[in-house]
């Protein structure tokens, strides 16, 4: 049971579906940082928006707006956006966009 699951996960990664096994490890870790609020693999179980499958350009634009304080109604994200640089925004955007 557990072995078949592990194999399934590995295969999913190879197919690019989860982008877990072969993603850039740093990008993968930074994206995983988001999951306690946005859900495992960016799939939220509640009111906080999902990040999985989000358009890369939109993701980066929103992070810049959070950073600059120009996105209305922001709560926690201003702090988070100021903790990462634009290269990191792009790496996380790419990671989440690849999740189906």
């Amino acid at each position, binding site marked *: 049971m557990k072995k078949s*699951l592990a194999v399934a996960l590995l295969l999913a990664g190879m197919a690019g579906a989860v982008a877990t096994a072969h993603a850039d490890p740093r990008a993968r*870790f930074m994206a995983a940082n988001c999951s306690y609020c946005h859900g495992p693999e960016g799939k939220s179980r509640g009111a906080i928006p999902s990040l999985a499958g989000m358009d890369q350009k939109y993701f980066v634009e929103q992070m810049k707006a959070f950073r600059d304080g120009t996105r209305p109604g922001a709560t926690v994200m201003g702090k988070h956006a100021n903790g990462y640089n634009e290269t990191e925004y792009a790496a996380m955007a790419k990671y989440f966009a690849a999740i189906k």
Partner: protein
Amino acid sequence: MTIDRREFLKVSAGAAGAVAVSGLAGCATYASGNASPNVVVVGAGFGGSTFAKYLKAWYPKANVTVIEPNDHFTSCPFSNTVLAGINQMADIELPYVHIQKLVDTWVKDKVTAIDSAKQTVTTAGGKTIAYDKLVLAGGVELLFDAVKGYDAEAQKTIKHAWKAGRDQTGALRAQLEAMPDGGAFVMSVPMAPYRCPPGPYERACMVGSYLKKAKPKSKIIILDGNPDVASKKGLFEAAWKKHFGYKTDNSMIDYRPNNQPKAVDAKKMVVSTEFDDVKGDVINVVPPMRAAEICGMAGVRDGSGGKWCTIDYRTFESKVVKNVHILGDSALTNFPKSGSVANNTGKMCAYAMSEIFNGRTPDPAPVVTNTCYSGTGMGTAFHVATVFRWDEAKQSLVPPKNANGVSKEESELEGAYMESWAKNVWADTLALPESYNFTAKG
């Protein structure tokens, strides 16, 4: 019981070869990326369970054993909502069955000894398990001896409810339900650092939200060992004023800084501080704490006069014992001791360890985050959020400019986010499937 079939010992003879791999760590040991090192995780809370899940995802060849005495997870974050009557204990109890499927071996047992020279862990059930890497995620040990009279007998009456469970959180809720209107709820805040810095102040709000409806003549007396509100001060004081008349003659909340409980008398129902003997109808004393017992067994409680464990921020490896990594509340860091931090540092340790096992150097400049919501019990919440980045000069993880701060004010939106946070962090930590049906409310 579902876990019994997993209670087999994978070590013994077969592990001897793998153990030989360890010894002198360093990346060269794992240069091939083909090793199957034995990784033993003690404690399946926010730190340990998250670590196990992510290490199996990022380095599937690791042979991961988790040792955990409880048969299910009980969440400390959100446990104050049980005191408010918003949730029942069952709503904050979550299953281990999903994370159990992802790891190689699950041992339902308590660790009784750790030999960091031989690199073995012994359990109460008599098992000895060898490790190449040991991950200690045991949370905190409560120091009852530091409060005179807080012995086993007194603990039957006076609950700390700082490790959530039916015999603590559930029992304290029952005491509050039995308290007469006009009664005094006396609660304490330990001296920092302690698990969940905003937790005591949130507890006052949550209990207040219940008393306001059910027993409005009652009082909440907060005995704080600290000189002032130790977390989210402005937001808590605003919430206390808005909802509980704080700083007025009719305040439900009586906040007393610099009032560390020195003694308790469970028969007379009195808490004594340096200044006062305070009588309560329900007493809730949270004693001082230090890193978990297992950290003492491993000899890694080297910091703060033997209380907490110093770690290398990039790997979470102990600074004094090789191949022992410490997660969550037990570690001496500049992170708050929160569920989010335990969850994310579990990933950070898994990231570093998977790099080492792949023969690479761990990320020299990692970044990690904390987001912590506190609820008022009145449908609103507020946050503190921080990003920590590696600072070479300080050899530490510190917040960059503008990457640390709190809410402007409490809001219903953040109340909804708090509920969502709980579901997502539980799902992330325990590998709960997308179909999992949560029952907890914010």
